[in-house]
C-alpha cells in the first residue's frame, strides 16, 4: 500500500469517526488496577472481542488443536454425505406403575432444606420425572427468598460420580497406616458396631446439628449407649456465644434483625457474604434499603475486602488488631464524650472506654467521621445494630470484641429490638475447644468408639494436633462421609450417609421457626441416612428410648418427634396430619422468637484489657462466599464462579494492598512465600484495592487432597495457619512475613474481559443527590432511529434490576448456570477469556485505588429492540421475536461470532469446544431437559429463560386465563436473596416491571446508542452523607 493511499485511508477513517455518536467515557469507574492505570496491554486486550483464537498453540495440549479440528470436520463431512439416513435408535421405557404425581415433562416442586453448617435455608427443589434438576429459593418463606451458591451447587454433590456407592470396610494393617477399603454389607457392619458400642466410652462427633428430630435422635442415642456428643464446625461462631455468655449469661446465638435497623455498623462481620446466615441477612438488609427515602446506612470496618464491605455506604479499612479500638472509639464518643446512657455514670466501665479516646487518629480517619457514625448510632438507637464476628475477628481479643459490641448494643437500646437474644439457630454449638479436648481424650485411650458425621478434622487440623495418631488409638472408628476423604481414610467403616436431597430431616434456622427437610429422590446408591444407623445400632443392642428402637425408618422417627414435641408448640390446635402436611407444603412453621431486652453484665466489660494495635503485617483468614469451610467443594460451579470482590476463579491467593505491593515490589501473580510462626506456604499475589497496608488476607476452604477430581489441588489449604490459645482458634492478627520466590502463577480473573470501554454503565448517586433530584447522575438522551421499530401486540418481556438491592453475591449466576446447562470451562480457559456464564456480575471500583469503593452490576443480554447483533448475523441465527426477545437459534448458528463483536454489552459467549461431552455420568442428570445442550462452534447468551416464559404462557392458556404478573420468574430472579431482579410484561402497565421502569431512578445502558434494551437498571444510592458522588465534576464535560 502506497503512502498516499494510506493517508487518504486515514483521512477517510477520521471523517467516518467524526460521524459516530460521541462516547461518554466515565473514568470514575474501573474494573481492575490495570484498567485504572490504563495499562497498554490491558487496553489492547479490552479492545479485542476474543482474547484468544482456537488456533493458539497451547490448545494442542488438549488434543483439540486446529489439525484435529479439521480432521473432525472431515469426518463429519463424510458422515453427512453418506448419512442422511437413520438416526440412532432411541428407546422409550415407560413406568411399570404410573406414579400419580408424575406427569412426564411437567416439573414438580418440593420444599426442602439445605443446611451448610451455619445457615439452614428453605429450598424449592424442582424435579423432573423424579429427579431433582434445580434448587431454587422458597419465595414465600419468612427468612430467605434466595438460595446461596453452595445450596444450589449441592445438586452437583448429589450427582457427584465420586460418591461412595455403598458401605466400605478398611482392611487395616497393625499400625493402621494403610487405606485399603473393600465393600461390605450393612448387616455385617451393623452387627460389629452395635457390639462394639456396648463396650461404652463412645463418642459421636458431628458438625452442627439443627432441627428438633435431628437433635433428638443423637440425644436418644447418647442416652442409649451412654455416649458423648461433640459438635465441631470449622466456622463455629464460638466467639459470639462466648461473648453472649459473658455479657448476658446465656451462650446461644442471637438473631440479628437487619431489616429493623436503620444504622448498621459491622466490624469484620461479613453478614452478606459468609457470616452466620447470609441469605436471610441479605433479604433483611435489602428490605431496609428498597426505598431510598427510608434506606438504612451501612458502615463497615473491614480488614478483608468482604462482600459486606463492598456494599457499605462508608467503608473503613482496618487491621484485625484495631477491631476492639473501633468499638471502644464509638463507645467513647457516645458514653464518655457525650455522657449518654446509664453507663455514663459507671466508673469501671468508663475507665475501659477511656482507651477508645483518639481512635479515629489511630484508624487513620477523620475524627469527624467517627463522631458522625456514633451520632447516627445514637440518633437511631433502638433501630441501629452493631455486629462483629467471623474468622477475621478471631484474634486473641475475639471475646473482648464481642463483649464490647454487646455493650454498645445495650447502650444503644438495640438489645431485644435489632438483637433478639437466644433467637438464633440453637444448633450452632460447634467448638474448636471441644474437638481439641476430644483428641486429647482419644490419645489417652478414653474413647473406644468414635462415630464421625459431617466433620473433616483430617483436613482442618494440622499434623501437630496429632489427629491421626489419636484416631488410631480408638478401637473402632466409623465415618459417614460420602467419599474416602482426608478423615474417612482413618475409619474402620465408612458408611456413606444419604445426600440431603435423599433423606428426611428437619431444621430450626432461628429459634421459633422449624422446617422439614423433604427428600426429592430415592437414594441413588446403597447409602443410608446417618440417623438410621444410630437407630439400627440401638435396636440391635436393645437399648435406648422406645421411639429410637421402634421406629422403622428415620421418617417415622421424625414424625414421632414432630407429633410429640413440635406439633404441641406450633400446631395451633390442628390435627397432626393436617399440621404435618401444612408444614411440608409451606416448608416451615412458626415465627422467630422475640426475647425483649436483657440486662448487660457490666463486670464482663470492666475486665477487658484493650491492647495496642500491632506494628507488623497481620494475617487475615476468611471464608469465601463460594467455598465456605471447604466441606462440599467437589462441584465445578463453585470454582468457576468468580469471587464477588476480587473476581478471581479457581484459586486462593494472598491479597495485599497497593501500598504493601509497592513497598515489597510485588506485582499481581508473583508467588510469595508467607511465614507465620513456624509455618510456611507459597501463594500467588493479588494486589487488592481498598486493603489496609498492613494486612495479608487469604481464603480458607481450598487445598483439599481427598475431595475428588474437581476440588483436589485447587488452591492451598490455609487451615494449618490457625493457631490456638486455650482452645480458642486464632485466625487473624498473627504476624506474617513474606519472601519473594521469583516465580509467577497466573490467577484466572475474568473481570478484565468483556470490558465496555469505559462508557457510562453504572449510575450511582448519594442519598443527598437523590433527595434533590431523583434521577441524579443519569444522562438522558434522545436518539433517532433508522428503524421503524417492532410491533409488540401481545407480551413484551422486560427486566428491571435494582442496583440498590444487588449485593453482588453471585447466586443468580449459578442459578443461570444450573437452569441453562452452561458449561464449566476450567482455569486454563478462563485465563483465555472463554468463560461461558451468560449472566455475570461486573464489579466496578470507584474512587482512589488505595481506598476504592465498589459497585456491582449484573450484566446479561439486554434483549435490545434495535439489537446490533441481529443486523450482522449472516445466517439469521439471532433474530427478534414478537414478544421482544432477542432469540438465539443454535441450529442456525455457524459461528462467525460477528454478533459478539457487534454487541456493545459484551454478553455473548462462544462454544470454543464441545464442553458438555466430558460430563461424567451421572452428572448429566443435573442438566435441564428443557434447554438445548449446545455444541462446539455455536454462539449462546441469555434467553430471558425463554423455556420458563413458554411454560408460564402455556400454563395460563391451558387453564384458560390471562397470565398473572409475577407468574413467570427467570432463574436469576428465583435465586436472588434480595429481590433485586424483577421480570415481567412491559405491555402491562400494572406489572411490577412496568412500575419499576417508571421510577425516576431507572436508566438504560448506552441510551445514546439507541439499542433500546429491554433491561433497565435502577441507580445505586449511597447513603454516605456526602453531597455528591464524585468530588470532581465528571460526566457532562467529559465526552471523548
Amino acid at each position: 500500500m502506497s503512502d498516499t493511499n494510506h493517508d487518504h485511508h486515514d483521512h477517510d477513517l477520521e471523517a467516518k469517526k467524526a460521524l459516530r455518536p460521541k462516547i461518554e467515557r466515565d473514568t470514575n469507574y474501573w474494573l481492575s488496577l490495570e484498567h485504572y492505570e490504563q495499562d497498554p496491554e490491558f487496553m489492547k486486550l479490552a479492545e479485542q472481542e476474543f482474547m484468544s483464537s482456537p488456533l493458539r498453540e497451547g490448545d494442542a495440549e488438549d488434543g483439540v488443536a486446529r489439525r484435529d479440528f479439521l480432521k473432525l470436520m472431515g469426518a463429519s463431512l463424510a458422515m453427512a454425505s453418506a448419512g442422511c439416513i437413520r438416526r440412532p435408535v432411541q428407546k422409550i421405557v415407560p413406568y411399570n406403575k404410573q406414579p400419580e404425581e408424575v406427569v412426564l415433562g411437567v416439573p414438580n416442586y418440593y420444599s426442602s432444606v439445605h443446611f451448610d453448617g451455619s445457615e439452614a435455608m428453605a429450598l424449592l427443589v424442582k424435579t423432573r420425572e423424579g429427579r431433582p434438576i434445580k434448587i431454587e429459593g422458597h419465595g414465600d418463606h419468612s427468612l430467605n427468598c434466595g438460595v446461596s451458591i453452595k445450596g444450589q451447587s449441592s445438586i452437583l454433590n448429589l450427582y457427584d460420580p465420586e460418591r461412595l456407592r455403598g458401605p466400605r470396610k478398611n482392611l487395616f494393617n497393625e499400625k493402621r497406616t494403610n487405606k485399603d477399603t473393600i465393600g461390605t454389607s450393612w448387616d455385617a457392619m451393623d452387627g460389629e458396631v452395635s457390639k462394639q458400642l456396648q463396650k461404652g466410652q463412645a463418642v459421636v462427633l458431628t458438625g452442627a446439628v439443627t432441627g428438633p428430630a435431628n437433635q433428638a435422635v443423637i440425644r436418644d442415642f447418647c442416652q442409649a449407649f451412654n455416649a458423648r456428643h461433640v459438635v465441631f464446625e470449622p466456622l463455629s461462631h464460638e466467639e459470639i456465644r462466648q461473648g453472649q455468655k459473658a455479657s448476658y449469661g446465656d451462650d446461644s446465638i442471637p438473631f440479628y434483625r437487619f431489616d429493623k435497623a436503620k444504622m448498621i455498623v459491622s466490624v469484620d462481620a461479613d453478614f452478606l457474604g459468609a457470616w452466620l446466615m447470609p441469605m436471610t441477612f441479605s433479604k433483611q438488609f435489602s428490605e431496609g434499603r428498597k426505598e431510598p427515602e427510608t434506606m438504612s446506612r451501612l458502615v463497615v470496618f473491614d480488614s478483608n475486602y468482604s462482600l459486606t464491605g463492598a456494599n457499605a455506604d462508608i467503608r473503613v479499612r482496618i487491621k484485625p488488631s484495631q477491631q476492639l479500638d473501633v468499638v471502644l472509639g464509638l463507645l467513647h464518643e457516645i458514653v464518655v464524650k457525650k455522657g449518654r446512657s446509664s453507663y455514663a455514670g459507671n466508673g469501671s466501665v468508663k475507665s475501659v472506654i477511656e482507651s477508645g479516646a483518639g481512635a479515629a487518629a489511630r484508624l487513620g480517619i477523620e475524627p469527624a467521621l467517627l463522631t458522625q457514625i456514633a451520632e447516627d448510632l445514637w440518633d437511631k438507637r433502638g433501630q441501629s445494630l452493631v455486629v462483629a464476628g467471623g474468622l477475621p475477628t478471631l484474634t486473641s481479643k475475639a471475646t473482648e470484641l464481642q463483649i464490647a459490641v454487646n455493650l454498645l448494643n445495650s447502650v444503644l437500646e438495640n438489645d431485644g429490638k435489632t438483637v433478639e437474644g437466644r433467637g438464633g439457630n440453637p444448633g450452632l454449638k460447634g467448638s474448636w475447644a471441644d474437638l481439641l479436648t476430644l483428641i486429647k481424650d482419644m490419645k489417652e485411650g478414653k474413647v473406644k468408639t468414635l462415630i464421625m458425621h459431617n466433620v473433616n478434622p483430617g483436613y482442618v487440623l494440622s499434623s501437630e494436633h496429632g489427629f491421626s495418631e489419636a484416631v488410631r488409638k480408638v478401637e473402632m472408628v466409623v465415618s459417614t462421609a460420602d467419599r474416602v476423604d482426608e478423615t474417612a481414610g482413618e475409619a474402620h467403616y465408612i458408611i456413606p450417609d444419604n445426600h440431603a436431597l435423599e433423606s428426611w430431616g428437619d431444621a430450626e434456622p432461628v429459634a421459633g421457626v422449624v422446617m422439614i427437610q423433604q427428600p426429592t429422590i430415592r437414594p441413588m446408591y446403597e447409602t443410608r441416612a446417618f440417623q438410621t444407623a444410630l437407630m439400627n445400632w440401638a435396636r440391635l443392642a436393645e437399648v435406648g428410648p422406645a421411639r429410637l428402637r421402634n421406629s422403622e425408618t428415620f421418617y417415622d422417627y421424625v414424625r414421632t418427634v414432630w407429633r410429640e414435641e413440635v406439633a404441641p408448640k406450633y400446631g395451633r390446635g390442628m390435627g397432626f396430619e393436617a399440621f404435618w402436611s401444612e408444614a411440608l407444603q409451606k416448608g416451615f412453621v412458626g415465627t422467630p422468637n422475640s426475647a425483649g431486652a436483657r440486662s448487660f453484665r457490666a463486670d464482663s466489660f470492666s475486665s477487658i484489657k484493650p491492647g495496642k494495635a500491632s506494628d507488623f503485617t497481620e494475617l487475615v483468614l476468611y471464608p469465601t462466599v463460594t467455598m465456605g469451610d471447604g466441606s462440599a467443594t467437589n462441584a465445578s460451579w463453585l470454582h468457576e464462579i468468580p469471587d464477588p470482590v476480587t473476581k478471581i476463579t479457581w484459586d486462593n491467593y494472598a491479597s495485599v494492598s497497593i501500598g504493601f505491593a509497592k513497598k515489597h515490589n510485588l506485582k499481581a501473580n508473583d508467588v510469595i512465600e508467607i511465614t507465620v510462626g513456624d509455618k510456611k506456604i507459597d501463594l500467588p499475589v493479588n494486589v487488592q484495592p481498598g486493603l489496609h497496608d498492613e494486612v495479608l488476607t487469604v481464603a480458607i476452604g481450598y487445598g483439599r487432597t481427598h475431595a475428588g477430581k474437581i476440588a483436589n489441588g485447587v488452591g492451598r489449604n490455609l487451615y494449618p495457619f490457625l493457631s490456638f490459645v486455650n482452645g480458642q482458634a486464632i485466625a487473624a492478627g498473627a504476624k506474617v512475613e513474606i519472601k519473594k520466590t521469583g516465580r509467577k502463577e497466573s490467577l484466572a480473573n475474568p473481570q478484565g474481559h468483556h470490558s465496555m470501554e469505559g462508557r457510562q454503565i453504572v449510575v450511582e448517586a448519594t442519598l443527598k443527590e437523590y433527595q434533590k433530584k431523583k434521577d441524579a447522575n443519569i444522562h438522558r438522551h434522545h436518539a433517532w432511529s433508522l428503524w421503524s421499530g417492532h410491533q409488540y401486540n401481545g407480551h413484551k418481556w422486560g427486566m428491571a434490576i435494582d442496583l440498590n438491592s444487588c449485593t453482588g453475591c453471585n447466586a443468580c449466576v449459578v442459578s443461570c448456570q444450573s437452569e441453562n446447562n452452561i458449561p464449566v470451562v476450567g482455569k486454563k480457559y478462563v485465563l483465555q477469556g472463554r468463560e461461558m456464564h451468560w449472566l455475570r456480575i461486573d464489579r466496578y471500583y470507584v474512587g482512589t485505588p488505595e481506598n476504592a469503593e465498589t459497585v456491582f452490576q449484573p450484566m446479561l443480554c439486554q434483549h435490545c429492540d434495535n439489537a446490533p447483533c441481529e443486523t450482522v448475523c449472516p445466517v439469521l441465527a439471532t433474530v427478534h421475536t414478537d414478544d421482544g426477545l432477542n432469540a438465539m437459534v443454535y441450529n442456525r448458528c455457524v459461528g462467525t461470532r460477528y454478533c459478539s463483536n457487534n454487541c456493545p454489552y459484551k454478553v455473548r459467549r462462544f462454544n470454543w469446544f464441545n464442553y458438555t461431552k466430558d460430563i461424567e455420568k451421572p452428572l448429566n442428570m443435573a442438566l435441564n431437559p428443557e434447554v438445548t445442550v449446545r455444541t462446539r462452534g455455536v454462539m449462546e447468551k441469555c434467553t430471558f429463560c425463554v423455556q420458563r416464559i413458554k411454560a408460564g404462557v402455556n400454563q395460563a392458556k391451558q387453564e384458560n386465563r390471562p397470565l398473572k404478573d409475577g407468574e413467570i420468574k427467570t432463574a436469576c430472579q428465583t435465586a436472588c436473596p434480595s429481590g433485586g431482579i424483577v421480570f415481567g410484561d412491559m405491555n402491562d402497565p400494572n406489572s411490577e416491571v412496568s412500575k419499576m421502569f417508571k421510577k425516576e431512578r431507572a436508566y438504560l445502558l448506552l441510551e445514546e446508542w439507541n439499542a433500546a434494551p429491554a433491561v433497565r437498571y435502577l441507580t445505586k444510592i449511597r447513603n454516605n452523607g456526602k453531597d455528591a458522588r464524585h468530588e470532581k465534576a465528571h460526566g457532562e464535560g467529559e465526552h471523548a
Partner: protein
Amino acid sequence: MMPLKTSVRATLGLAFLCLAFGVSLTGCKWQPGFGYNKGHSPEQPIPFDHKLHVSTNGIQCQYCHNQVERSKHSNVPALSTCMNCHMQVKTDSPHIQKLAEAYSKGESIPWVRVHMLPDHVTFNHSAHIRRGVNCQTCHGQVETMQKVYQNADLSMGWCINCHRQPENNAPLNCTTCHH
C-alpha cells in the same frame, strides 16, 4: 499485519468448509423425504396393534396416552395401564405373557421410538391438543395402523406450513420450537 492475514486465511478456509458442509446437507433437501424419517416403522419388542385396540375395540387415544392434554409429551402408557385389561384379556398370548411377566417383576418394555425430533427442537403436545389439532393431523390414521409408522416427515418446513396459515394464528418465533 501478519496475524490479520492468518486470520483472514483461516476465515476463508472455514467458510469453504462450511459451504461444503452446507452443500452436503442441502443435497438431502433435493431428494424429498430422504433424510427425514417419513415412513419409519421399527420393529417393536411386542407387536402392538393400534388398529385392533382403537378401531376394533374402540379404545380412546387418551385412555393410554393419558397425559397428552397436560404435558408436552404424549406418554407411552405405563405397564399398569396395559394390565388394566390384560389381567383378563388374551392372557394366553405369548406377547401378553411377556408383558405380564415384565409387569410382575417390576420391569418395563423398551419400546423403540418412532417419532424423533432433534435435541434442539421442542414440541408441545398439550398446546396443539388445546387448539383442537387432531392426533391424525400429524400422526396419520393411527387407528388403521397395525404397525405404527411415521406419517409426516416432521421437517421444519412441514411444521411451519401449518403455523403459517392465518386461521391457525400460531406463533412463528424461532423460540417457539428452539431454545
